């Protein structure tokens, strides 16, 4: 398991993080299954989009 997770790319690690946190938030904040699915999708996509957006904003400073 350590070898598998240790070889994750940055993006894969971010997707795993976003997935687990979004599912937990969905179960914590919503009661019905439909609401949970909707909230999970929204939070998961928001996590990825914000991270990619901030990544692009920081890109010029890495040169």
């Amino acid at each position, binding site marked *: 398991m350590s070898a*598998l997770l240790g070889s*994750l790319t940055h993006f894969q690690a971010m997707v795993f993080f976003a997935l687990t*946190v979004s*599912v*937990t938030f969905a179960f914590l904040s919503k*009661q019905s299954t439909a609401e949970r699915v909707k909230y999970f999708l929204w939070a998961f996509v928001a996590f990825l989009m914000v991270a990619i957006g901030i990544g692009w904003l920081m890109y010029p400073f890495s040169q």
Partner: protein
Amino acid sequence: MEEAIKKEERAGSAATGIAVAVAGWIVPGLGHLLLRRWGKAAAYFVCVGGLACAGLAMRGGVFSWGDPDLFDRLGFFADLGTGGIYFCAHWIQSAGSDVAHATGDYGTRMFATAGMLNLLTVLEAFEIGLGRRI
């Protein structure tokens, strides 16, 4: 009749609240399992437990109370939120931490996040145990 059943289901006590909160802190999802919230119990066990174990498997750092830096001590409280996993961390992570690499740094954040998420689930279990929440 249905309302009476719902009311009975919601009736809780401080003892129940504390017991499920402690159980949920030791093992993520255990508090909800004792409250017969099967779906939530499974989701929290897989997600919070998975995130914590992934953080350790990625050789993330585990903070201890003895760290001199104030932020490290805050990290200790976050890590402590994982409960039983924190106390088994050195056994799960037999190779030790390696925060010199990005993967280890991510693992540190994942483990701390799992601790904070588990504290949120513990609070929810406590409220359900008290009968304040469905």
